[in-house]
């Protein structure tokens, strides 16, 4: 039993458990010390209860030390939060002399769909997930991460109810697998997501490449040569890129895969003569088949007419 209000007060209210599974019973007792209640004359105080504003009757009996005690059983608590007021009839009014906060809910649902992305700007690892079913109780959500060899568990806490947070660089171990998972804890239990085992670098989000120049090369043929570069901060990575091209009337994109390196030129032929094409390129780390970068800004180019 959890005592609320010291023994010196007019009344003290104790509840069986402050948090119960939704729909289950709540028991409470209210002990009145007549001499501590200002103005309560002799005679037997009549104790009653309010569940928020709903009157409830308890079973009243004489308690130890001249106290009066009322025992209450709420058969089914069906709202997430309620106030249980202990009252005493006095001068024709219902006086509130004690209160206890009670809650009903469910154990937290299991978080799912955990995925993470490494920002190559500040090397923060941002993870997102889907919240489990709402337990209607104050719930503590945390993303936890552990490096393979050390027992220390760190991570981050989502702010203002978002289902994402960012593990700062100083807690990460790069180029080695780490374990990440989400925990949700409330008064009725804890739930954990599946564990994600990844090397943060394998989920790095690359910057899109930049298409520098596009020329018909050799001139007046169906061949085109493009030059492209990557941002310096991706320069240390071995990349695998792909180029897509398309004339406005084409139903879909043509794709040229397997382009390696950080910058360079790409030549491709069999383009239509004198036709306007849109070109875009994207890259990803060759090592881990991680996330593709966004497509580069589109570049347009009209191929040469056929040599006469």
């Amino acid at each position, binding site marked *: 039993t959890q005592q*609320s*209000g*010291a023994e*010196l*007060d*007019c*009344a*003290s*209210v104790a509840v069986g458990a402050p948090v119960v599974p939704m729909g289950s019973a709540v028991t409470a007792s209210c002990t009145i010390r007549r001499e501590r*209640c*200002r*103005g*309560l004359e002799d005679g037997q105080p009549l104790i009653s209860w309010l569940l*928020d504003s709903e009157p409830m009757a308890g079973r009243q009996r004489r308690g130890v030390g001249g106290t009066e005690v009322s025992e209450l059983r709420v058969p089914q608590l069906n709202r997430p939060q309620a*106030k249980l*007021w202990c009252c*005493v009839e*006095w*001068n024709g*009014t*219902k*006086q*509130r*002399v*004690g*209160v206890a906060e009670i809650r009903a809910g469910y154990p937290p649902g299991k978080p799912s769909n955990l995925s993470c992305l490494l920002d190559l700007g500040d090397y923060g690892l941002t993870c997102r997930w889907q919240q489990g079913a709402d337990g209607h109780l104050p719930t503590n959500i945390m993303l936890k991460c552990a490096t393979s060899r050390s027992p220390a568990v760190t991570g981050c806490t989502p702010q203002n109810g978002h289902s994402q947070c960012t593990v700062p660089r100083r807690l990460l171990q790069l180029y080695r697998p780490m374990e990440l998972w989400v925990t949700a804890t409330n008064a009725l239990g804890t739930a954990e997501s599946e564990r994600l085992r990844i090397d943060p670098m394998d989920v790095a989000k690359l910057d899109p490449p930049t298409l520098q120049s596009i020329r018909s090369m050799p001139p007046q043929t169906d061949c085109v040569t493009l030059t492209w570069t990557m941002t310096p901060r991706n320069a240390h990575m071995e990349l695998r890129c792909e180029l897509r091209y398309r004339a406005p009337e084409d139903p879909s994109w043509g794709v040229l895969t397997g382009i390696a390196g950080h910058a360079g030129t790409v030549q491709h032929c069999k383009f239509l003569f004198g036709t306007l094409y849109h070109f875009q390129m994207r890259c990803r780390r060759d090592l881990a088949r991680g996330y593709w970068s966004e497509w580069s800004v589109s570049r347009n180019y009209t191929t040469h007419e056929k040599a006469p």
Partner: protein
Amino acid sequence: APLAELSGDHDFQLFLHKNLEFTRKIRGDVAALQRAVCDTFQLCTEEELQLVQPDPHLVQAPLDQCHKRGFQAEVCFTQIRAGLHAYHDSLGAVLRLLPNHTTLVETLQLDAANLSSNIQQQMEDLGLDTVTLPAEQRSPPPTFSGPFQQQVGGFFILANFQRFLETAYRALRHLTR
């Protein structure tokens, strides 16, 4: 010159009208905090809390010299200042009770201190004896035996402060022309 004679003095009348407005502002802020206690803890009317009223000397702020019968302006002003000083300290208990209203409570404490120093400076301008209440000499806010007692304590600090301000307001208005 006795205070009554000065009542016609323009500066004194301007002081009164300004600080009547100031008192109305403070009363409005106290009412806002009373609504917050009602909304948050469902403690809304004194009639329901007679049996658990905290000890009478929760805040020492007598205003007996401000009532019409034995109205003694100089002593009344001093009693108002002492009461503002006491309520400034006891509002610390409301600060703990309503963490989401910290700015409003701190503004209320600032206003109570300002109103007290406005009255002090006006008394000095009128050549009346004034007691300097050292700003640093603060008494700690009252403490309570449990969460319910803290909520009831906060409720009565605000209710009593509102009553105190009503009496002070009537005293100041009594001096206006």
